[in-house]
């Protein structure tokens, strides 16, 4: 057994309104690739941010090579050799690769002059060992995402990392690039580096990792050896119950065709998109980040202008030039927006709920506040939103309640088609379930529903049919028993691009 390098013991971390980590114990050994899995909001990123010095824990201890440590800043963690390769790369586009690699530790002489030659040489060595085809003096902003990621990984080599944490690294990589990355990870492992690998993708986890720890709602559900485990076991640990109990598929009668899309194209983003949605149907769109799903939704909604294609909505050919038009015709889009959840955080619940539909409540441009309050209260009860009143700033509410407001906002106008883009991202399990239930109710009420999601269990659980997208194209359609994780992954992994 390899030596334990980093241990988190009874780690607790709280944020206003939510306990992100609850007495989590987790250890990483040298020369292993340890997967950390869990749904969005399970606490994976939080745990890693604590271990890499970005957050301070509220309880518990960190042990590095047997010694108790506290990190006051990421720099201190980095000095010990713990490096986090962010999900959102933290590079500065204007600086060179070498400058980014050594950010915060640039070699200078007495007068503050950069010792460029020395830095470039060392950076080159790191880049070469990763098989990079570019040099240290390249401006990072001009590199592709995959190459930028290499720069960020080179940082770990440059600092002689003993622990490297990868947070969802393969989001926009092609198959070739992913394989390159895995080779790098393997060589790091051989060198005795301890690697933590956070990912949603089962296939990758089973390809490259040695052990898997599953988090759910901020608590550890177990640690297993990869080769002794299975997708089913992991999924069960992640979700806590069987898929059927957790998700709600609508029991609705499918009616008329509400939306028909033909050959929709937006230069550079997506093309050849054709599908249709019927009333009462829940169509899921699954794909990896970067597949172009949100862009399709935005184009349908009028927030982006298409390059080509025909859209027929409720029997009428339409070409929305702004969301306003789409809304008036009966379309609703709940956008994917990590921070604001589609709400204006600085305004109250009442304002947010009625914003898209003010003209329904207004005479001569003056909204009738009584009517607004009536609507607000109606949805507050229906969706069980916990808020102190119509004027409480939505920014003060929990993620789950915020998302309920988002739904209320769109539903109070009785749309014919509603598109939900990642509707439960970052939300606690209880609220997730409520939202899924509500989506089912929408379909049962006769709405046509499109759910865009990158969480497989979710999209399989709520959809009648699933479309898969990759690199801007539709690559598959599944319904009924065909909707399995295996099929979905296979469909989106066939990427036409070479590196």
């Amino acid at each position, binding site marked *: 057994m390899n030596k334990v390098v980093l241990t988190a013991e009874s780690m607790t971390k709280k944020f206003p309104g939510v306990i992100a980590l609850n007495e989590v114990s987790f250890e990483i050994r040298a020369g292993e690739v340890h997967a950390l899995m869990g749904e969005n909001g399970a606490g994976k990123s939080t745990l890693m941010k604590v271990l890499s010095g970005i957050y301070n824990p509220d309880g518990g201890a960190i042990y590095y090579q047997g010694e108790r440590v506290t990190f006051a800043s990421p720099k201190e963690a980095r000095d010990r050799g713990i490096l986090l390769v962010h999900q959102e790369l933290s590079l500065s586009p204007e600086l060179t690769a070498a400058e980014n690699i050594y950010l915060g530790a640039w070699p200078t002489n007495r007068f503050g002059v950069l010792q460029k030659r020395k830095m470039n040489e060392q950076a080159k060595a790191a880049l070469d060992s990763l098989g990079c085809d570019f040099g240290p003096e390249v401006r990072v902003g001009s590199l592709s995402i995959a190459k930028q990621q290499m720069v960020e990984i080179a940082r770990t080599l440059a600092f002689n990392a003993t622990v490297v944490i990868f947070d969802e690294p393969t989001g926009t990589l092609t198959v070739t690039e992913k394989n390159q990355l895995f080779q790098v990870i393997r060589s790091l492992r051989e060198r005795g580096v301890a690697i933590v690998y956070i990912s949603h993708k089962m296939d990758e986890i089973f390809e490259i990792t040695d052990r898997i720890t599953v988090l759910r709602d901020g608590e550890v559900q177990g640690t297993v050896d990869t080769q002794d485990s299975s997708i089913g076991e992991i999924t069960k640990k992640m979700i806590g119950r069987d898929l059927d109990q957790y998700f709600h598929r609508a029991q609705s009668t499918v009616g008329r065709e509400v939306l028909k899309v033909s050959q929709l194209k937006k230069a550079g983003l997506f093309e050849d998109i054709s599908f249709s949605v019927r009333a009462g149907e829940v169509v899921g769109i699954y794909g990896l980040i970067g597949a172009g799903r949100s862009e399709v939704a935005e184009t349908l*909604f009028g*927030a982006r202008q298409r390059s080509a294609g025909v859209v027929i909505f409720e029997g009428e050919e339409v070409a929305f030039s*702004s*969301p*306003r038009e*789409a*809304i*008036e015709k009966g379309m609703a*889009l709940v*956008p994917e*927006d990590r921070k*604001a959840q*589609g*709400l*204006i*955080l*600085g*305004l109250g619940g009442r*304002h947010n709920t009625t*914003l*898209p*539909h*003010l*003209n329904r409540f*207004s005479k001569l*441009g*003056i*909204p009738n506040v009584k009517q607004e309050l009536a609507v607000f209260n109606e949805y507050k009860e229906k969706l069980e939103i916990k808020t102190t009143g119509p004027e409480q700033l939505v920014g003060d509410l929990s993620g789950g309640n915020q998302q309920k407001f988002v739904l209320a*906002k769109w539903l109070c106008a009785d749309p014919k088609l509603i598109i939900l883009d990642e509707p439960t991202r970052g939300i606690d399990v209880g609220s997730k379930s409520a939202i899924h239930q509500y989506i089912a109710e929408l379909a049962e009420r006769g709405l046509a529903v499109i759910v865009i999601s990158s969480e497989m269990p979710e999209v399989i659980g709520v959809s009648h049919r699933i479309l898969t997208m990759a690199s801007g194209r539709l690559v598959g359609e599944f319904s009924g028993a065909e909707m399995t994780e295996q099929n979905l992954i296979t469909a989106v992994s066939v990427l036409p691009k070479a590196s």
Partner: protein
Amino acid sequence: MHISQDKRRTVQRHGLIFAFAIFLVVVSFSSPEFVTPGNILNVIRQVSITGMIALGVTFVVITGRLDLSVGSMLTFLTVLVVDQHNQVGPGLAMLMTLAAGMLIGVVNGFFVGFLKLNALIVTLAMLSLLQGITLFYSGGSNVNVDNAQETWFGFFGRGELFNVPMPVWFFLGAAAIASFVLLRTTFGRWIYSVGGNESVSLFSGVQTRWVVLSAYLISGLATGLAAIIMGSRVMGAQNTIGQGYELTVLAGIILGGTSMLGGSGTIWRTVIGISMLGFVQNGLLLLGFPYYIQWLVTWVVIILAVWIDLAAKRGKVFA
């Protein structure tokens, strides 16, 4: 250093008023004329013009943007109304001025709202452009109103109603209308939402580009109104008459507590901010300080006001 929630809220809401009240007391003691109704009315009359402009700029600031062209706009529009008064008569001159103000606002609004250029730079450019246009129009000379004593044009700047100067009526009246629009109309909601989160607003069906353009149009209109009052009062205009107004307006809005980031703020905050600035300046003059001391005090007051507000919001004195 952490401050308790309650103390924070109190400071945030009332801190500035407290400080201002103390200032008023101090000045009243050393200069008894300060609290005479005559003087108070005088001050409010003086701030009416700046205040009128500030009402318009408040709309722009709530959408998260700036309008630095108002000073040169004021100069140009005042010159315009005075000159045209002699050419086509007061009525038509005033209409032209209002139209011109709105047009300039629309141009600003087009560049900032539709082309999405940086508001600071665009309005600075407009500042320069307008100075040039003013010079061109006036030929470098000052203009004066003919028949200054008899023309009914004088009512706006020099008239009185129930012993209150007309500029004050106009200012407060406009403030009431502006406040109503902001707080009670759909358009006002849109202003707040665009400032609060532009992309969410867009996705909620708000025509964000038009809202921004409208905000600038309002700013231009307000400046036009101010120009009419100014021209009426002074009965003439020099090429530099509006210089520096954009700074005072901004200072007043900042002092009132409206956030430069947008999404919040009210008309009454602006009214209070501008008035405070006016009283501070007046008080200093009465205390015998030369006019440029005001500038120094304005600097200190702005820094303190914004710092206190920020500190109260985040609970810490230092960042």
